[in-house]
């Protein structure tokens, strides 16, 4: 109960928090919120179902481009959003099926290559995606006739969606499916022997995770108003994976913490200028050696060390 109140207080505080910020600050917080949605999806795949996906940014991109194209075609945002999610879910199933049917770590290679392929499609298919020029002037979303144009309004809209996606995720994790995900991550052989269809569940976890990225992409497209292939490359997928691991994979609030790091570290490491990415890479290795459970495992780690 205490926990529930704390979470509710945090949710409300974050809703009102950016009111005092300038537009750039609001943009950063909204970006964080978008990353949290994509990160929750990836956490399902990586943290709860124990699979490595290196293509979350590809689904993010599919969601963003689907939304941009749908809005250009005159569809309302509330129609484009489910379209983006469903498309990502379907593509996730198609990609995951061959990889997961054989060997579960093939998913890492399949998603990595898939991300490269999606990037190529975004860059090469000018007629659909605008090629390297991308799509600009993406319409502001309208909700039942109300046009969301102020940055603060758009943040609050995004944040409500983030919380809603979080609630859906919590329900999924509490359902028997959530237990099956955890069981097959802990011990796939034992899971099969008690009738848990590990291939089915990992595939669904991956596809649901992809759908979350699609939703995040839809909000991202409206946030930036202009999309081009660059943000949807493999490097972003790696950042997203790092975000989940750094926060604490398999922990519900891991992505929220991790997204904060990924959004803020570039700001903090600004003094390091061009060394930023190199330091980032070393930090990953060091963290995997010392704290493989992520930041949220720190309290347990300290307690254990005593």
């Amino acid at each position, binding site marked *: 109960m205490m926990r529930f109140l704390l979470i509710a207080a945090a949710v409300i505080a974050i809703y009102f928090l950016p009111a005092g910020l300038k537009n750039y600050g609001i943009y950063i917080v909204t970006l964080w919120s978008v990353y949290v949605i994509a990160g929750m999806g990836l956490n399902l795949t990586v943290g709860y179902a124990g699979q490595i996906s290196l293509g979350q940014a590809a689904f993010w991109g599919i969601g963003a481009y689907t939304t941009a194209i749908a809005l250009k075609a005159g569809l309302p945002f509330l129609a484009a959003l489910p379209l983006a999610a469903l498309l990502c879910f379907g593509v996730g199933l198609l990609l995951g099926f061959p990889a997961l049917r054989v060997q579960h*770590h093939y998913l890492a*290679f399949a998603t990595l290559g898939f991300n490269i392929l999606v990037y190529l499609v975004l860059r090469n298919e000018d007629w659909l995606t605008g090629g390297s020029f991308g799509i600009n002037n993406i319409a502001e979303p309208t909700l039942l006739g109300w046009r969301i144009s102020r940055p603060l309004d758009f943040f609050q809209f995004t944040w409500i969606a983030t919380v809603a996606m979080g609630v859906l995720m919590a329900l999924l994790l509490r359902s028997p499916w959530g237990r099956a995900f955890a069981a097959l991550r802990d011990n796939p052989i034992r899971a099969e022997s008690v009738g848990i269809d590990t291939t089915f569940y990992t595939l669904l976890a991956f596809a649901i995770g992809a759908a979350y990225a699609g939703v995040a992409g839809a909000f991202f497209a409206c946030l930036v108003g202009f999309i081009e292939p660059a943000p949807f490359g493999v490097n972003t997928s790696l950042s997203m994976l*790092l975000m989940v691991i750094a926060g604490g994979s398999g922990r519900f609030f891991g992505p929220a913490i991790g997204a904060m790091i990924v959004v803020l570290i570039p700001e903090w490491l600004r003094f390091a200028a061009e060394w930023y990415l190199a330091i980032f890479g070393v930090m990953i290795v060091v963290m995997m050696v010392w704290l493989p459970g992520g930041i949220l495992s720190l309290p347990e780690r300290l307690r254990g060390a005593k």
Partner: protein
Amino acid sequence: MTDFLQLIVSGTATGACYALAALGFTLLWQASGTINFALGEMVMLPAFIMLFFIGPAGLPLPLAFAATLVVSLIILGAGFKRLVVDPMIRHGVIPLVIATLGLSIALKQTVRIVYSAQVYTFPSIFSETLLSLGGAKLSVSDVGTVVIAGGLVLALQAFLNGTLTGRAMQAVAQNRDAAVVLGINAERMVLYAFLVNAGLAATTALLVTPVYLAKFDMGDTLGLKAFYAAIIGGFNNSRGALLGGILVGVLENLVGAYISPGYKEGVALLLFLGVILFKPEGLLGKAEERKV
């Protein structure tokens, strides 16, 4: 027609290089369960080390290669095993994958800072002459690359199957516990696999850099292609890696020339998906046992 033949030959040469890298990847996976996502950087780094030995240190290419080989074996072989893999392997595969991804970023960016994002030319061990073969012109470097890389793959296979040490390495890969019971020093065999991987990567750098040119991110696609080549050809078979590599190299060239240069990089993925859909054990692989 002449074009076609040249595409095939140069594709085979690129593919043979994929195969070399793929082989190192396969060996590591089998010996220690390591999925090494820094594989591409383990080719990129020796390329720059060699450039250093040739440039500032002023060594001739063969000596520079020998020196690079030694450095690679120490840092990318033994050092990688001791500092990154050993402390992490007990946490399972995922942390190790992330760590090698981190290592890949760190290596790439460090090189970018030191050498900038510029492209460097790299001397070839082959002359630039062309061979005439029934009207078609083939480059000596393509043919030479195929011969050297193909020869190395086959030599490595002979080593694994024909020598006591090679057989011991295979035994450890298949069943470590049983191998230990038989008195094999498993730890040392795993170290050998890391050393062979580093050696193969350095050799790949020597062969591939004159064509790819030295750049901090040259390993990106190379590493990925190597994984695909390994899986397409068949994971438990070194000739499989050769076949997979050549298949990827040749098809990429053909797609790039006849279909769309924009999608050249997508060929390997589609081939990979096709193979795991219809022949999951790889083209030359044997179906593996389900294990307890």
